[in-house]
């Protein structure tokens, strides 16, 4: 396949940045999108250019490190995948592909397609945990039975990989789906109920501090989420937040 790539190039956080056009040939449908970028970078370097910086690590869709806004969609045109799982068979010979970083005020660009998502970590620091010590001297794991349905729903929420596609997709750059996933996971489990009130208040407060926007229920985040985190989690978080606010 022969492709035209339009890629966001930005030297560092201070640089203004711009889209730059490139041509590439010899791309095979079995390549992953990031392997295509590997080939492209090797080619670029052999011509004396500086390779395009992009985040990636596990390349199997679980670490959440890869990002990329491809042809106007977070993680590209396929559904239920991260960019590293996107394959070139989703594109045609002669296509033009636009590649940009995940854009949000809370995700400043570090270089080219690499952004800083530490705001997500700081939200987790504010309450994304259950306050048990890690001594191992707790009760037996089977002492509290948990309904399979609740455990499964908690798992579905916990499957979030923290990639930031929800934020990049949202017209308001809202982090509600990300925060709601963690709030829901713990809200659904008896172990997490004890601190539910503080958790939701603190995490939402931190989310606002970081400069993420409001949720206006467009549902775009759910569509682009590579792990299928459901909007129901946002509804659950809103209920948790409301009842916490009333208590507070």
């Amino acid at each position: 396949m022969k492709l035209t790539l339009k890629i966001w190039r930005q030297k560092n956080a201070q640089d203004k940045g711009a889209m730059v056009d490139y041509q590439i040939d010899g791309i095979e449908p079995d390549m992953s999108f990031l392997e295509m970028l590997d080939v492209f970078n090797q080619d670029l370097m052999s011509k004396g250019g500086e390779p395009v910086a992009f985040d990636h690590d596990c390349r199997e869709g679980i670490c959440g490190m890869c990002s990329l806004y491809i042809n106007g969609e977070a993680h590209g045109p396929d559904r239920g995948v991260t960019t590293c799982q996107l394959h070139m068979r989703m594109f045609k010979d002669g296509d033009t592909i636009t590649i940009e970083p995940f854009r949000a005020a809370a995700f400043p660009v570090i270089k080219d397609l690499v952004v800083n998502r530490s705001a997500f970590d700081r939200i987790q620091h504010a309450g994304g945990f259950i306050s048990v010590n890690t001594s191992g001297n707790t009760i037996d794991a089977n002492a509290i039975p948990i309904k399979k349905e609740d455990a499964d729903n908690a798992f579905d929420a916990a499957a979030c990989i923290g990639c930031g596609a929800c934020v990049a997709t949202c017209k308001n750059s809202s982090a509600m789906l990300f925060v709601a996933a963690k709030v829901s996971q713990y809200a659904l489990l008896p172990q997490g109920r004890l601190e539910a009130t503080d958790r939701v208040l603190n995490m939402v407060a931190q989310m606002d501090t970081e400069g993420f926007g409001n949720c206006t229920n467009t549902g775009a985040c759910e569509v682009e989420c590579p792990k299928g985190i459901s909007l129901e989690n946002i509804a659950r978080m809103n209920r948790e937040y409301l009842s916490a606010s009333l208590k507070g």
Partner: protein
Amino acid sequence: MALDSKIPNGPIADKWTNYKDHINLVNPANKRNLDVIIVGTGLAGGSAAATLAELGYNVKAFCFQDSPRRAHSIAAQGGINAAKNYQGDGDSTFRLFYDTVKGGDYRAREANVHRLAEVSTNIIDQCVAQGVPLAREYGGLLDNRSFGGALVSRTFYARGQTGQQLLLGAYSAMNRQIGRGKIKMYNRHEMLDLVIVNGKARGIIARNLITGEIERHSAHAVVIASGGYGNVFFLSTNAMGSNATAAWKIHKKGAFFANPCYTQIHPTCIPVSGDHQSKLTLMSESLRNDGRIWVPAKLEDAQAIREGKKKPTDLTEAERDYYLERRYPAFGNLVPRDVASRAAKERCDAGYGVNKTGEAVYLDFAAAIQRYGKEQVLIHHLDANDKELIIKLGTEVVSNKYGNLFQMYYKIVDEDPYKTPMMIYPAVHYTMGGTWVDYNLQTTIPGCFSIGESNFSDHGANRLGASALMQGLADGYFVLPYTIGDYLSPDIKMGPISTDTPEFAAAEKNVKDQIERFMNTNGTHSVDYFHRKLGKIMWDKVGMARNEKGLNEAIAEIAALREEFYKDVKIPGVANGFNQELEKATRVADFLELGELFAKDALHRNESCGGHFREEYQTPEGEAQRDDENFAYVAAWEYTGKPSDAVLHKEPLVFDNVKLVQRNYK
């Protein structure tokens, strides 16, 4: 220097308890005056960081990723072992200990493995208390599955994302401590050297990967939890960034490196599709619970399939060779990984491979779908003759258990594994070898500890499935927090350690010189060019089957490649900024040394054991032939200037509780 493993005296079941009763403790007020550096935030590093911070130490944690949550433990799929015996199927601490020593082909240290089995049950309690959503049965209790090399169901899991959920549990425990200010987190930082002051590890030199700044960080102890070195093969199931640099740097500063040749080639990975391949994807071993592995029984069928003239579903039962069930009737598809991998290679080498490259076998779920479907029909009182319904319901059960893996396969290969068998082939996955540590998990450098995959101690020559997660969390949550206190107790009055010393300056200069050298080489080839070449040498000559001639060639070729690398590598961009090529260069430089030591170790070990298979040493049936008389020891290598000059130290392995026999899974 004689190796002292510091294994406590007494009966094996009492060693750890007695030991804990008699070590030195640090009182809570004094812990506040002690700093600990932890490099790596996977299951081992993350759990250690959280626990040490909770105990009161000041922790500085480092990871090269943009968040500790991304460490490659996240990708572990299948599960975590624990001797809970919830299933009442005969499991016990001793049995988990025994299975692990046997699975490791009798090349692990008994005392460490027993301790691992002892604390395994605590891990599950801990994780449930942290809100880790492990799989449950309809009665609300935890579910288990079975894994290779065991006759009991002791594996706890969270669908196909067990590593993710356990890591996020450790990450949540870290977050609590980061929020309290007890852990200072350094994301996007890479450790590039260890600083030793008066014979003790007292700090590290790290590069800030965003600004390129070279930073000095001091502490009273340094813990390496940087994972394994599988990426020495270029293609592996490791993450792209997984590297051996932290472990290798401490090796060059005096930490012995043990058993580098013990590498696990995982039997169920998605086969290589082309030259552009950047990494390999694992399909969890848990799939072997329900999937049956086969190749065509006749060569002409294999050839027809390779040429696209036949499909796997065209072949009748009689035309298939379920070779694991045939060769190992007792364990069948659940033989340990090393055995399963070699059996796949044997069939493919004999011409029975089923993809274009001839390097793939089938993993088939048709029988499992039928079996589960029939069960569902009975449970729900439905029409037992409705074949389509049976397939539909069976597919749902399989999807519930392995849905994410099937989806992953579909996205990569573009074939639906519910309808046609998966194609799989072995790939480099885990390294049992690593930094030598004593019972305290301390390396041969005082104050420098090594935990999780980066040490060598628990898995011998082959790791059993679902044991890596167990070991990482055991080391971090329950072992290191005790042993490091014993080491730190004399340091309570020391106060903060200055970084303004000649030792820090010298280490920093060393790092800066290396970076400058890379930036100024201005060669003609990229880092990947050399890394791929190294990987090819390793896979061809130091891979699943090794022999003396090939290993000698590999040693020479790697040394030559290393020389070429330093002369001809090209690093674009700048050193004082974000530069991914430079990051790769520093990592590959270390792989180019480690690979040579790896081959040297494989050459010296004139036996086959676990993941180390020397073609010269095999039984008439082609199984690994150990030599317990001459090789029942840990090979711990001391760095003396270059890999070829490494000096061998032997730690004899003593087996008081397990009888050494040839592993038999028939």
